[in-house]
């Protein structure tokens, strides 16, 4: 069986890639995708931890992962709506153009 540390490494790598994307990408939609990547990295972690603990006794890891899926979708929907709203008033989704208030 694939050992636990491999899953954790993949998850950590995905999380870091996502975090880099949030900080470095300038397109708001790409930032949103990076956030989703981070959340999915967490899902890998959770399911791996669940599988390597006592999978029958407790399914908290799986349940947590399911909730993260759903919440991530809700977050993405709200985020896209706000991005569209900004786009309509400025014709740009580049985060750097959103500069009325100083960061």
């Amino acid at each position, binding site marked *: 069986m694939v050992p636990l540390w491999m899953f954790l490494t993949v998850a950590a790598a995905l999380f870091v890639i996502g975090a880099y994307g*949030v900080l470095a990408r300038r397109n708001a939609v790409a930032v949103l995708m990076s956030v989703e990547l*981070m959340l999915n990295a967490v899902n890998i972690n*959770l399911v791996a931890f669940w599988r390597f*603990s006592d999978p029958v006794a407790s399914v908290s890891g799986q349940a*947590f992962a399911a909730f993260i899926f759903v919440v991530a979708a809700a977050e993405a929907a709200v985020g896209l709506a*706000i991005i569209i709203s900004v786009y309509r*008033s400025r014709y740009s989704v580049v985060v750097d153009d959103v500069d*009325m208030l100083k*960061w």
Partner: protein
Amino acid sequence: MIDVPSFAELNLEVALPGIFLALFTTVLLIVDLFIPKDRKITTAHLTIGALVVAFVLNLPAFNAGETAMNEMFIADAFAGFVNMIVITGAIITVLLSVDYMKRSGIEHGEFYSLLLFSVSGIMFMGSANDLIVVFIALELLSIPLYVMAALRHDDVKSEESGIKYFILGAFASAFFVYGAALIYGATGTTNLPEIFRAIAGADGIVATENSAMIYLVIGAAMVIVALGFKVAAVPFHMWTPDVYEGAPTPVTAFMSVGAKAGGFAGLLRVMIIGLPLLVVNFGDAVETMAIGETITVPSAWQTALWLIAAATMIFGNFIAISQTNVKRMLAYSSIAHAGYILMAVAAVGTVQITKVAENDYTMVAVYAESALNGALVYLLAYTFTNLGAFAVVMSLENNDGSGTMLDDFNGLSKRHPLTAAMMAFFMLSLIGVPTTAGFIGKFLIFDAAIQAGLIPLTIIGVLTSAVSAYYYVRIIVNMYLKDAAVTDEAVGLTPYVNYATIVAFAGTLIFGLFPMLALDLLASSGAQIATLLF
């Protein structure tokens, strides 16, 4: 075979305030569709009615000390108190919003539903007994706030504050779940009391030499980062002034107290119930302890919180001095106030170890109760005071969002003596002058921090409070000693806003004069947490 719980086992009645509010809000969303556009005041009245009902339902659940929904939810004094704070805060927010929304042309019935969703999120956060519930509550309180911040969609500033809050908020949520996943991996459970028991270990002292410890420390750090973002602690505060300035003022007012109460409720739940005994470095003293001897050690996260609290108090107060827009100044002052509450959280991390017998130790976070009381009373005082201050700022704000500069307060005592007097009182409460609620909160927190041995941090707290007096008193000076250049009418000074200001004033005054009212409510919180854990 699956173990199906019966409805009686779920013990839903102790979760009733939160469940009622969440379900009512869902229905309100539909009801609002059938209310004509010029009668949205009805929705506001329904909202206040629901909040009052939730407040009443909260009273029997207050001291129940029982868990619900398979131990994922708990109703104790802590939860009841958080519910009380947030419901009162929400009622004042609704009073503030009614006229403001109308005169700035953003009157949507959905606003009230969003507000109530956020409120129920904070209520679930206060009652969370499981990391999954903490996460869902965190999102339930944040997602409506993202929308509410961007509500003024004809104003680019408001949209911008919405998108900033959203991006950074989602980023912080990802950190929270990553931390929660690592804590789950280390302990094999998401239930906070079970995490506590897993950390405390069989012989009462944690094994330091294993990978679970690394997961726990990284997990705790990430949870602190995420919740530190929600409560606007330095260095995770970058979003605060922009979002506060851009969002509609009632939303800002609610954000500054509601999101803060929710974030701190989550932080206190995780730190006091889940991770208080997370000690990595016991030092040599444990090796040489005699039987019956007692020593205190800091938990792994205390230093981190110490630094964050100190940075938050210093940064927030000093930047607030240079602000000329009162809304922005209140944003920085809200950062500074988060620092004081973080001081109380840091005080929880002082752990007492007693050697009972050979290879048998007991570890107790002895100052958890006084720190918890301090943090909660501070939150209560801050809720009333800050909402009051925002109410006054709002009554001066013009329809286009201007009118919130420091100079706009000049000569207010002559134009509106009562409002000016209440504003002066709110400012004194924010400084922490005796007879105000703010003093009680600060006193309890400093007291807990000194007990826990955080003397330098307490000194920083006292000094920065003195610094904060400068910019709060400046408003009083402007109101009483300067003459106004213009004498235009305060457009926002409507009856509803007046009610809100008076409610906030009454709360600040009553809890300032009779602090035992709040402390009695919290009397059993520590004992309840102890029974929960052992």
